[in-house]
């Protein structure tokens, strides 16, 4: 067992020496791997920011029913009664026009404009949540509500949130595809590097076999080489993403604040960082394994 562990240490040290023996080549290989991995890792960081943005907004689909500006309390009362009886309505919250005016006055930026107006410009409104939240059912409900007496306008409030949610889901799928594609690239790069290493170390492999080395003994340093390439590339990708997060944090936050949103771009968290490094090292190891399967028979 001690001998086995000792050989693992020797193999890792040998792999490190082989990397260090050609520093420029190794650095360029690590950079290629790092840049390839930085794209999905950076995408994950942006996606996490966008998720945070979406989480700050209500995601339950809502319909807002605006009464005619001239409609009286009786008309609003009738609509309230209809909504309460409607089987498709889960909840209907009444927003009196006075309440809306007070809220808008309290909000930033609009106070002076609203105070300059002669009369309350806001109508009575109802915020409706429905039982069937599918887009078609929501649309049917909106069409029905538009026909009710005294109703001026019906708005599907959550449409943009739903669009954002769809975009996030699409982004996640694209990111997974990109990660798979570039992960394949990492495997290909490691495959090629290890193949060259096997060709370079052909004499040593032959001698080792003749002296009684097992295939596992021969493969071990090359597997460590692939592992270290992947791990190093993953570390470079992490640094690139962390650097980008630092550089972009202030301008992104400023842009978001212009839309009254909060967006704090953060570097990858501990779990995402660990996942990046483990996947990178694992893919490097896998590339080495594929390469050894093909090239050791020829060595």
């Amino acid at each position, binding site marked *: 067992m*001690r*001998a*086995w562990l*000792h*050989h693992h240490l*020797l193999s890792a040290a040998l792999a490190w020496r082989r990397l260090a023996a050609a520093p420029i080549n190794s650095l360029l290989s690590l950079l290629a791997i790092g840049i390839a991995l930085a794209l999905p890792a950076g995408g994950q960081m942006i996606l996490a920011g966008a998720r945070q943005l979406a989480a700050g907004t209500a995601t339950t689909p809502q319909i807002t029913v605006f009464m005619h500006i001239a409609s009286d309390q009786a008309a609003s009362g009738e609509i309230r009664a209809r909504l309460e009886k409607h089987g498709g309505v889960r909840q209907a919250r009444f927003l009196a026009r006075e309440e809306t005016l007070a809220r808008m006055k309290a909000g930033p930026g609009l106070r002076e404009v609203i105070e300059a107006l002669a009369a309350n410009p806001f109508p009575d409104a109802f915020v409706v949540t429905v039982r069937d939240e599918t887009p078609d059912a929501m649309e049917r409900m909106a069409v029905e509500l538009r026909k009710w007496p005294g109703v001026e306008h019906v708005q599907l409030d959550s449409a943009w949130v739903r669009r954002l949610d769809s975009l996030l889901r699409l982004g996640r799928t694209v990111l997974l595809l990109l990660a798979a594609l570039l992960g394949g690239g990492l495997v290909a790069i490691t495959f090629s590097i290890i193949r060259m290493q096997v060709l370079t170390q052909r*004499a*040593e492999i*032959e*001698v*080792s*076999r*003749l*002296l*009684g*080395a*097992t295939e596992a*003994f021969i493969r071990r340093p090359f597997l460590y080489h692939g592992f270290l390439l992947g791990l190093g590339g993953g570390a470079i990708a992490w640094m690139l993403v962390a650097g980008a997060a630092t550089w972009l944090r202030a301008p992104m936050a400023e842009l978001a604040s212009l839309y009254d949103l909060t967006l704090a771009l953060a570097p990858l968290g501990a779990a995402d960082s660990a996942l990046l490094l483990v996947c990178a090292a694992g893919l490097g190891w896998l590339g080495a394994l594929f390469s050894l399967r093909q090239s050791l028979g020829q060595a």
Partner: protein
Amino acid sequence: MIRFDRVSKRYPPGVDALDGLSFELDDGGMLLVGGHSGAGKSTLLKLVAGVERATSGAVLVGGQNLGGLPRSALPYYRRRLGVVFQDQKLLFDRSAYDNVMLPLTISGFPVREAAARVRAALDKVGLGKREKALPIMLSGGEQQRLAIARAVVGRPDLLLADEPTAHLDAENAADVARILVEFNRVGVTLLVATYAQELFPGARRLLLDHGRIRP
């Protein structure tokens, strides 16, 4: 120690390197295998080293039939042998010390014991003060002695040497032969394929001619 029982080895496309060869070599014995180029000397050594398998017949080493040895067991069998290759097969990017250390690393020897053995083996062949030298910095004779040190560092019971004195001048060839004979005197069974049989006086000889023993 070694028994060949009607061993034949045929290489594609039908070249017979060995043809019905039978002989025995006892524990601690020394056998010189001679013959012209292509007589089958190297093939005989490759069969004993487990590098090649016999086409027919049985090769037994230490009572073990190598033909029945699974491929996965071959590395462990090879660790019990010491082999001096015709072309030495030294690693030219590693020091003399690291070259001799390689078989012990492969066998999983504890580091301290391995280091002591490597130094003892290098001392034995007269390279104790050249352990840091790369093989390219050594003379032909020194390289051959380094190959012997690597072959004996694992203290094998059986030492195989394929033309160990080839390409050496008379003085170096005699030196290498003397070292091999010394190992045989301390009980190591020695099987040597060589043209220079006069360097091993008193040794048993086996002369091959087109894969057969010449009487």
